[in-house]
């Protein structure tokens, strides 16, 4: 699995994909840092993440849409699936590589925290919980994006399916309150208030495992029907 993680992370940064993802996210973060934190003279770094989590909905496909769709289109999936690596290790390798990009992005956001430290002492526990919550949300998003990429060879379609699905989950509570636990983005709102929300964490983990297994099943099944 390490071989795949290494290669995938390298590809993110050999191509513009990794830079575009991190650059776009940080550019938007700068805007939110000004509007939600600096403008009010606040030290609450976590406020920036309420809006930043919305941005994630639209930029996660940059990382995920090519994962399997590109391999399928270019035929390089043959190299992967004829190697002595299991489909599970291939899927997990690609998943963890994306999570590494997320971690790098989160580390970059600490720059804004450093700015706040020039003016006072932000509440570090809340910052840590927010970053952890953001990591959990990203994990769930990436697992779905990866699944979308496994069902098509067209990257654009994979991206549209991903964004479409996130937007639907966004508005689910508007249809019925029972559906609120399925709204990934609404669940995130508890973390910037410094709350370690066990139910939300469990939902994110369940969601991630579900779509990772679904991706493995889709790829395994394609072997017998393609």
């Amino acid at each position, binding site marked *: 699995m390490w*071989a795949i993680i290494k290669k995938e992370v390298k590809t993110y940064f050999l191509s513009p994909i990794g830079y575009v993802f991190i650059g776009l996210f940080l550019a938007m973060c700068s805007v939110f840092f000004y509007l939600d934190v600096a403008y009010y003279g606040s030290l609450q770094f976590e406020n920036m993440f309420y809006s930043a989590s919305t941005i994630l909905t639209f930029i996660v496909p940059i990382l995920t849409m090519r994962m399997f769709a590109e391999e399928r289109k270019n035929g390089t999936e043959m190299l992967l699936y004829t190697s*002595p690596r299991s489909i599970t290790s291939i899927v997990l390798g690609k998943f963890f590589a994306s999570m590494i990009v997320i971690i790098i992005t989160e580390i970059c956001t600490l720059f804004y925290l450093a700015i706040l430290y020039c003016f006072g002492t932000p509440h570090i526990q809340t910052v840590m919980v927010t970053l952890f919550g953001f990591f959990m949300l990203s994990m769930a998003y990436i697992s779905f994006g990866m699944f979308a990429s496994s069902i098509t060879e067209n990257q654009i379609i994979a991206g549209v399916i991903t964004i479409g699905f996130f937007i639907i989950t966004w508005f689910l509570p508007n249809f019925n309150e029972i559906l609120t636990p399925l709204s990934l983005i609404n669940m995130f709102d508890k973390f910037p208030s410094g709350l370690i929300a066990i139910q939300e964490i469990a939902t994110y983990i369940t969601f991630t495992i579900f779509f990772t297994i679904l991706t493995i099943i889709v790829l395994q099944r394609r072997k017998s029907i393609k």
Partner: protein
Amino acid sequence: MIEVKNVTKKYGDFIAVEDISFSIKKGEIIGLLGPNGAGKSTTMNMMTGFIEPTEGEIIIGGYDIVKKAQKAKEQIGYMPEGIPLYSDLTVKEFISYMADLKRVPKTEKKNRIQDVMNQTNLEEVQNKLIKNLSRGYKQRVSLAGALVSNPKLLILDEPTVGLDPKQITQIRELIKSLGKKHTIILSSHILSEVSQICQKVIIINQGKIIAIDTPQNLENKVKQENQIKLIIEDKQDKIHEIAKNIKGIKQINFIQDNEDGTKEYTIRSEQNIDIRKELFAKCAKEEITIFELKKTEATLEDAFMELIQKQDEEGENECGQL
């Protein structure tokens, strides 16, 4: 080394490969021949574990490709058709990634990468991005990727497609030399290539195996008749009359009128009779000038065409009877 037992691959109602069985011994170089859509790539894809057979089993070096996939795949080096490569990587990075994917031990990795780059003449482009390479180099990179784990079995799907004649010769020589250490199965449309490189040929058509034999035996099978190419200047058109009087001639076919006023014929005669001497004498007597009188050899191409045609006719007859 490989045992393919009663393998069938279906896509819905369409049968891509039907009940094929064959085995390949260690150290053999085998050619998989067949027209487009015959089932060659499907067979290769099943042998590499890329797709699963609907029925039957494939054993690679004692391991079932479906049930013991990892063990079986460790023994295979596969060069797919269409040379899929990661174009953003350099040659060395790609080969290194292939080594990692194929679990080449860390202690051997550096040497293996160097060895395959030597074998495939890639040292001078090792730091170039794959996307900037010519097709010939890409083909070699793909082959290097297949070779890096020093596999017991090499599966090469159309290894010389798109190469110039010099590169084709180089790749053929390389495959021949690899045959000393590896079992090789290759598919090709180029029959002369298969007859030069391979010790055994599997001819596949409409998803079924129609012949497994050495190229020599397959050629001999169609050598049931002698065939002679004849170019003559015969203004009075006497050749048909002459042919009638020579014992053993079964058929004389007019091929074409040449620009220099000569005519070209092919003459088929019984296998054990050489008619050239008599034909020469009679033509001389009738003052027919012979420009060319040559016995043509049956080639693998003839064998291939005859077998394919025979199977197509049998297929049509079966349909007719139904």
